[in-house]
């Protein structure tokens, strides 16, 4: 059962040639990169299914958006100079709370509280600064698998001044470049196995044909 299938492997050359070395290298890179990046691929596949079947997925939850649960409410007495931007204030608040990281800021004008959305892959936090009452409210979004997958899918990285954000962006870049490599190397590896050329041609031809038709028509 564990023996390799002879018909699945390309014909072994008697002596190692540059071609066979390249072929082996492609085979190994194809396999090891796929093994390493399998969590990213699973995440993208499952999150796409969640996105395309949003209504159905949401029917399993009691509300459209996850509930916000209060974590802490603190006194916050720091005052800010009037020439400070809302972004700078938001950053300072997060640093004071030990929550520095990727975030966006809204509100904070015309007496409205400043709302800082501190992004997090697992569950986003909302920090509300009420400068008049000198209070800070920290709320955490209830964890939802569907929201988590959706958020990860949309996270691209590079847009915020945090190394972690860039690391994620780089990992996504690697994953998408490798996807192109898998496509091309997959065709190469298939062509080397003579026994499956006919059916493989049919599968590839059907895929390319369908794709081309849809690209042109819709």
């Amino acid at each position, binding site marked *: *059962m564990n023996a*390799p*299938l002879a018909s*699945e492997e390309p014909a072994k050359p008697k002596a190692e040639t540059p071609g066979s070395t390249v072929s082996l290298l492609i085979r190994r890179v194809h*396999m*090891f*990169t*796929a*093994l*390493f*990046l*399998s*969590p*990213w*691929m*699973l*995440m*993208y*596949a*499952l999150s*796409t*299914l969640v*996105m*395309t*079947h949003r209504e159905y997925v949401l029917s399993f939850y009691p509300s459209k958006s996850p509930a916000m649960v209060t974590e802490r409410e603190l006194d916050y007495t720091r005052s800010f100079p009037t020439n400070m931007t809302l972004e700078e204030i938001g950053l300072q608040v997060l640093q004071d709370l030990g929550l520095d990281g990727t975030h966006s800021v809204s509100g904070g004008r015309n007496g409205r509280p400043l709302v800082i959305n501190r992004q*997090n*892959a*697992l569950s986003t936090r909302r920090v509300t600064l009420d400068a008049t009452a000198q209070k800070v409210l920290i709320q955490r979004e209830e964890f939802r698998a569907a929201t988590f997958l959706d958020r990860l899918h949309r*996270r*691209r990285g*590079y847009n915020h001044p945090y190394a*972690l954000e860039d*690391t994620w*962006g780089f*990992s*996504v*870049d690697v*994953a*998408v*470049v*490798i*996807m*192109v490599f*898998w*496509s091309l190397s*997959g*065709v190469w590896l*298939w062509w080397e196995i003579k026994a*499956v050329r006919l*059916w*493989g041609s049919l*599968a*590839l031809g059907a*895929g*390319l044909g*369908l*794709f*081309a038709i*849809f690209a042109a028509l*819709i």
Partner: protein
Amino acid sequence: MITFDKINRRAHLYLGLFLMPWLMMYGVSSFIVIHQSWFGANKVLARELLFEKAYNRPVNMQGANNSPELRATAQEILKDCNLEGAFWVDKPNADTLHIDRFSFRGSTSLTYSIKDQKLTAMHRRMKLPQVAMRMHFRGGYGQPTFGNKFWGLLVDVACVGIVIWVASGLIMWWRLPRMRVWGAIAVGSGILSFVLLVWTL
């Protein structure tokens, strides 16, 4: 007799070949989405006038943007213009209906002024990077016509296909005893990197 190993390998191979254009498209388009400015994908081409004509159709403007009521009206307008297909509809103001009839290669913007009883159509072509992005974002079954729904099905098949590739790939690796140690390192480091990133991100 066909063994499980052989079925697994064949499934990995043929599914891969069939879905290769989608995998390629998602790879290329994701890179463009992330680095839009590198490809000029954030710069749009100018719209060209297709037609401007007198037009009169009673419109139910009660629904919200892209609501079923508004979509039903928009679909009738598109039918009148022989432009049926995927679209979004919104109300820029109380007496104007705007329809974005989109495809991978372009988008036709129809503006119906109820007050002036005038229908204007402008077309915008998409640049190649934008075509790739449009393919990337298109999925689901919410748009009319068989073609749009079939594309939605193909996107679902591609997603299920990726899950099958991962599962069948893991089985194929495990069946190669010489590769188990290095493979385990690759799988383990991949899972660890992913979990660490997600945990701290």
